[in-house]
């Protein structure tokens, strides 16, 4: 099984303060901590597990600046064999459509039985790249994949997660693309030592020319969508903040529960 996994290096936003920069079109990236996109972490783990069972190789691909090497190294430490990074300053501003096109140009030249992506990227949350890439590659796909059972090298039975805990089971012929949902496995712990060892592995860097992509096809020029303005989401409810020491806050919470007949 030769497996290609698309991974994105993203800022971790859950606990960070996100500020809009002076252009109004982007956020202040300075000071944010970047790491592998959560969904891609599961995708890489799944690929490595399949390789460990059936043999073959795992190649990770990212479109991103040099800093994204740390995400690739994490994947190499986890058991990926090869890493490819695509970068050109002209790629700045690329939307998921352009990213899918760039990934297609890279992957079409590789030997693969499976292509894995995450369901979505934590930052843009568009959930687009996987299925679009499958269309460009002309291979079948399934998204929200929570289980992959390989039947020989020719097909896979996959479980797709639907709404409300419902699962859909489909059979897909290989080569195929699966967009991986979190919880499909438990990503293994990568030790610092492992990452250090991965430092010696080569990361292949490709530019637009290597992929015979024209400037006009990438970045803002090639994108379908362009961010015009960012703003803080308006609150849907007026939130009343409970203030004071934890004890005082606790008393107020119990008061609310009492008023609802719950205490």
């Amino acid at each position, binding site marked *: 099984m030769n497996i290609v996994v698309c991974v994105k290096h993203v800022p971790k936003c859950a606990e960070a303060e996100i500020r809009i920069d002076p252009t109004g079109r982007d956020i202040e990236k300075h000071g944010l901590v970047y790491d592998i996109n959560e969904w891609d972490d599961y995708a890489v783990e799944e690929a490595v597990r399949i390789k460990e069972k059936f043999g073959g190789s795992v190649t990770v691909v990212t479109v991103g600046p040099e800093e994204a090497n740390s995400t690739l190294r994490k994947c190499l430490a986890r058991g990926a064999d090869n890493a490819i990074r695509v970068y050109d300053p002209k790629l700045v501003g690329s939307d998921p459509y352009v990213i899918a096109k760039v990934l297609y140009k890279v992957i079409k030249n590789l030997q693969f039985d499976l292509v894995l992506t995450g369901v979505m990227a934590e930052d843009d949350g568009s959930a687009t790249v996987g*299925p679009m890439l499958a269309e460009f590659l002309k291979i079948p796909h399934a998204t929200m994949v929570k289980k992959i059972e390989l039947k020989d090298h020719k097909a896979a*039975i996959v479980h797709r997660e639907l709404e409300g805990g419902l699962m859909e089971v489909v059979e897909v012929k290989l080569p195929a693309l699966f967009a991986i949902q979190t919880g499909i496995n438990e990503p293994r712990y990568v030790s610092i030592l492992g990452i250090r060892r991965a430092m010696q592995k080569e990361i292949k860097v490709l530019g637009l020319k290597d992929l015979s992509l024209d400037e006009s096809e990438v970045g803002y020029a090639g994108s379908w969508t362009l961010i015009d303005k960012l703003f803080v989401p308006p609150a849907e409810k007026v939130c009343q*903040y409970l203030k004071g020491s934890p004890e005082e806050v606790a008393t107020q919470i119990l008061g609310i529960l009492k008023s609802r007949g*719950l205490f």
Partner: protein
Amino acid sequence: MGGIFVLAEHRQQQLRDVTFEMLTKSRDLADKMNTTLTAVILGKNVKELAKPLTEYADKVLVVEHDLLENFVSDYYQSALVHLIDQEKPLLTMIAHSSIGMELAPRLAAALNIPLATDCIDLTFEDDRLVVTRQIYGGKINARVIVRKADRYIVTARQAAFKAQKPPRPINGQMIEVPYQPPSEEVKKRFLELVTPPPGAVDISSAALVVGIGRGIKDKSNIPMVEELAQMLGGVVGCSRPIVDKGWMPSDRQIGQSGKSIKPKVYLALGISGAFQHLVGMKGAEVVIAVNKDPNAPIFGHADYGVIDDLFKIVPALKKKIAEARGS
């Protein structure tokens, strides 16, 4: 100009709520632009199911075929490629659901029609499609301009639009359209739907739910919250990462791919408020959110907020309850 298409979504012989949400939004857009609204329904024996759509849409295109009995994106895609090529709608709206997320991006790529996904609002400004979508886990909204084209595809976030009957009777016309199967071999086959096994605890009917998210940090901290819930006669629910890590069974998950709850009070601890979680807690009468990040999106959906460390608030709550009960 070809009007607006809405792909009606249905499962297990029921139209899904998002169908009516999309129809409501599109009805409004179509009226403003003086164009027609068309609902498209794909399936097997769906004519009866399609009837309510005529109350919203001027036309209801019904495509029936054995191959459309279950959702397989390839069969759906060939039907839509054909319809869009033929009718040339300016806008095709699909739900950002497990169906739409599988279908829409590939359809857009196949037809080379610009796509914007997970939209929470959309308008046409001087012929340009402008959408609002959320980025960075719901912390920021983006006004996004879609590249000018004569056709667009969008996916609409579930529950982003409120379903409402149109301002006037519509009485749309139902039209059967023959199905065009894909010209190439379909390499995907539907096998079955698996319903989740009933869990030991039913969070969907509990009067008090205490929800935990990634802020709980470690499995070993969960008993502390279980105890709190028990003292109050409530149950513990959680966000997705807690289930993903195997710390709680999947029947405790609140949200889009988990359960919907409708308690009198939902106490959310260390949950950021991603929209996939929010849709599951919409039914709560009162939401109290505890989060140490003052900018956590959940505060925009809470009645009461506590900007503090849950590891301080939970013990204080337990202490106060014990005191009140005189033990």
